[in-house]
């Protein structure tokens, strides 16, 4: 078994779920086992973006002991567009 955590964060609420997964389990399996998709139904809408400790990865990547599988949200603004707007203002 491998001990992992699955985490999802919004500014007003965050969740970390500790899980023991079978050896060779994938990121996708861990996310499903965490039941975070039921708790935060907005996650599933546009395909899941996931990663481990700040680095995005594919859903079929196997998990390792101690991993924190993270479910990511998109940025509010496109950074290039935001910079353009800031530059216009000054």
């Amino acid at each position, binding site marked *: 078994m491998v001990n992992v955590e699955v985490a999802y*964060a919004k*500014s007003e609420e*965050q969740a970390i779920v500790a899980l023991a997964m079978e050896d060779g389990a994938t990121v996708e399996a861990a996310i499903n086992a965490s039941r975070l998709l039921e708790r935060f139904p907005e996650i599933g809408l546009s395909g899941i973006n996931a990663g481990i400790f*700040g680095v995005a990865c594919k859903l079929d990547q196997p998990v390792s002991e*101690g991993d924190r599988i*993270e479910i990511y949200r998109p*940025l*509010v603004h496109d*950074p290039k567009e935001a910079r353009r707007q800031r530059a216009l203002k000054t």
Partner: protein
Amino acid sequence: MPVSLENPTLIDQINALLPQTQCGQCSFQGCRPYAEAIASGAADINQCPPGGDEGIRDLADLLGVPPKPLNAKFGIHKPASVAFIIEEDCIGCTKCIAACPVDAILGASKFMHTVIVSECTGCELCVAPCPVDCIVMQPAPPSNTARSRAQKSAQAKRRYDARCLRKEMEEAEKAERAKKKKLALLKMQAAKK
């Protein structure tokens, strides 16, 4: 360094009383280096602003010395706070994630970064690296302040130790890859001759 539970060294005992914010305000590179300096007599017990008077009292009790006021040269004791990311401004650059000693920020390159409040120690180390100044400090919520200092520091230490171990392994893997690349290059050069 593994900590033996039956016979923790003086350094481990001192380190266990420090808040594990790793903030560096004491002038050392984190809580354990400060604990080492206290143990060796190189630093005084009143250099930790996050620990404040309570922390100084604990250290004084452990070491059998009289407590003294916090040395203001190293900062002042502030109410517990946590970092907050202004989502409209975050550009997903990962600089705050790299700076956080306890993995309290969730996010990846070009994805939203979010502070996990229950993990944040309020060390403020993420504030300065942000290129768009989108991280502000806010008062810690009751769910954080309700936990004892010992609980909070134990959690922070567990996260910090896990992070250090992970970084060490990443460095070792990187060095291994570089070594392999160099060997392959040398082989190629030898074959050319």
